[in-house]
């Protein structure tokens, strides 16, 4: 992706299009091309501006200037004055006194261009993932060399602590702290495990890293081994990721040939080797203790905690378990220093985050942006607006177990701290964007079906709870819902969250909880009125008992 000096956003909601937004868009392209500024300025469309009075709107970053209503004659002037000479064309600005809260977000980001910043993905999609030479040519193994030849293990951990890196698997635990726990535990044998069992539906950020830049993970794990005092590592890769497994195995083989894995790496006393372990398709094995059980060859069921894996992990030895994206952040941090990393993102959540965008948007794929970007920016700038000009209704962050975020929260900066305050979780970085035609009850049902299927059955709240929630929701979408169901859902959600054994049960309730919290009227419409407002749910399945009307 090119880094643009400026970004022009032209509104494309139906009202703007009626007033000639498409023509304006084309004119911008023409005028910018006429001045040879194509490489410096990018043009995108913007939906859902909340300003029909000033449509069509043109927004220019990084100044966050809002022009409107813009007509075809103004385009030339805006390009010449603003983009070419750098002066704001004051008389064309949108009337500020009517500035609605919905584009208030533009002001909060004043002066910063929400550009992509690739740290983790800097090599993916550019280098040949099956050739170690290409990796070394692009700063590969520089971080390991720096650590092995000039840093003590504690210094490596200090740099990580200074950087403020948080686990990218979803929970956001400070990585440096986790490393220091393992390093501080006395044991002859320790392990480093990379959790690449990315089974959260809709998340594929780890796959991109593993397929595009596998050696980054191998290098990061070797560094981790040095820092915590481990000599053996496992990469637990999801069973479906055959290509990623092949590339990882190839990477390990090449690293061994080059002496970058094995005994006495770079002529130091440090030895480290890595095994690739394939999962077999169970969602639960993404949970770290179930994953460890699976590596040990047992049934993938979570362990009771404490003890945590940092003290008693794989075969009872202290084990460091990190997510792929977390590890991929380690070499650049070590190479450039903790302070360097802190310049990206927000003070409480430094760095960048990889998001996968999917759903009803024009562009699907993945982006790596600084922490703290808002959902609205993701949808409008990177997602290039909603498909067919529809309205944004909700987004689910982090796959099935992620929060359901209503449109009212779309201006919350996406970082661990802000999301925690807003009562939602950031999760693993999948962003499922849904438009107005999505029925939340139907969405919840699909998610619950998944959890019911994937619950390992070890603990009762999860085994029974996920099944019961699924039953109740099925009843509601088939038109058999009663108001008692709402109470039961509240109760089940509470029990699941509080007494489940592991993350699966505890987070299975998250989307349902959010639906109950933000979309209660829609749920009630299903029950009281017997209609699905979006026309998605069948509502008329064979009636076993008359629907109770309160």
């Amino acid at each position: 992706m090119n880094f643009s000096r400026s970004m022009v956003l032209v509104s494309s909601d139906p009202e703007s299009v009626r007033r000639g937004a498409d023509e304006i868009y084309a004119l911008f392209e023409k005028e910018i091309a006429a001045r040879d500024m194509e490489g410096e300025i990018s043009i995108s469309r913007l939906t859902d501006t909340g300003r029909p009075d000033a449509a069509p709107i043109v927004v220019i970053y990084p100044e966050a200037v809002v022009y409107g209503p813009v007509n075809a004659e103004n385009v030339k002037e805006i390009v010449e004055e603003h983009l070419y000479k750098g002066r704001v064309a004051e008389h064309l600005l949108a009337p500020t006194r009517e500035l609605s809260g919905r584009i208030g977000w533009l002001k909060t980001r004043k002066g910063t261009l929400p550009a992509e910043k690739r740290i983790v993905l800097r090599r993916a999609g550019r280098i040949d993932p099956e050739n170690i030479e290409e990796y070394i040519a692009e700063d590969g193994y520089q971080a390991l060399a720096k650590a092995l030849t000039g840093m003590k293990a504690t210094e490596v951990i200090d740099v990580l602590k200074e950087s403020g890196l948080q686990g990218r698997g979803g929970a956001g635990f400070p990585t440096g702290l986790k490393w220091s726990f393992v390093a501080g535990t006395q044991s002859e044998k320790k392990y480093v495990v990379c959790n690449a069992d990315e089974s959260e539906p809709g998340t594929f950020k780890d796959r991109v890293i593993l397929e595009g830049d596998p050696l980054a993970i191998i290098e990061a794990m070797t560094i981790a081994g040095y820092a915590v005092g481990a000599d053996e590592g496992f990469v637990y890769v999801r069973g479906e990721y055959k290509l990623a497994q092949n590339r990882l195995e190839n990477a390990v083989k090449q690293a061994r040939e080059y002496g970058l894995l094995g005994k006495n790496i770079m002529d130091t006393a440090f030895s480290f080797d890595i095994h690739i372990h394939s999962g077999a398709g169970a969602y639960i094995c993404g949970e770290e203790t179930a994953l460890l059980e699976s590596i040990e060859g047992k049934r993938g069921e979570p362990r009771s905690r404490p003890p945590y894996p940092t003290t008693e992990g794989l075969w009872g030895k202290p084990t460091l378990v990190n997510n792929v994206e977390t590890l991929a952040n380690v070499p650049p941090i070590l190479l450039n220093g903790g302070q360097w990393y802190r310049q990206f993102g927000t003070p409480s959540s430094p760095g960048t985050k990889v998001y996968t965008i999917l759903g009803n948007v024009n562009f699907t794929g993945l982006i790596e942006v600084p922490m703290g970007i808002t959902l609205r920016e993701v949808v409008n700038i990177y997602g290039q607006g909603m498909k067919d000009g529809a309205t944004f209704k909700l987004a689910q962050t982090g796959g099935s177990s992620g929060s359901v975020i209503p449109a009212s929260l779309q201006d919350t900066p996406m970082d661990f701290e802000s999301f925690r305050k807003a009562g939602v979780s950031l999760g693993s970085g999948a962003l499922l964007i849904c438009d107005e035609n999505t029925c939340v009850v139907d969405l919840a049902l699909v998610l619950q079906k998944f959890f019911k299927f994937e619950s390992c059955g070890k603990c009762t709240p999860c085994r029974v709870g996920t099944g019961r929630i699924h039953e109740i929701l099925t009843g509601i979408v088939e038109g058999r819902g009663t108001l008692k169901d709402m109470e039961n859902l509240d109760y089940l959600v509470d029990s699941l969250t509080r007494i489940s054994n592991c993350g699966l049960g505890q987070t299975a309730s998250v989307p349902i909880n959010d639906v109950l919290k933000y979309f209660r009227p829609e749920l009630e419409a299903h029950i009281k009125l017997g209609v699905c407002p979006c026309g998605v749910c069948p509502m008329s399945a064979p009636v076993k008992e008359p629907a109770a009307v309160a």
Partner: protein
Amino acid sequence: MPVVKSLDDLKRIREEALQKRQIKTSPGHTQIVVGMGTPGIAAGARETIKAILDYIENNKLENIVVRQTGNIGRDSYEPIVQVIVGDAETVTYGKVTPEAASEIMEKHVKGGSVVRAYIIPA
């Protein structure tokens, strides 16, 4: 096989690799990089790379390196092909079907003019 025993070994390998790359990006050489991550392959990158190789063979083109890479992150536009002619800037094409690949080979690699219709919008 070079074994990395010290910082200098690593530096040497790095410089050698960079030199190899230098040759690839010198005038008269062309690199064609096909995105072969899961989304690329699912969208038909294997057929695309085959069409490119066939074209090179049928037209007896020389000094072209065709290689693969991972997913670049723009899944809506897969299969993605990057073309680097000499030291010119990388041109990234999206939705490259085998037919589109032949057209790009004909016009861009052989003819030297970028095929605007397939370029991924920034």
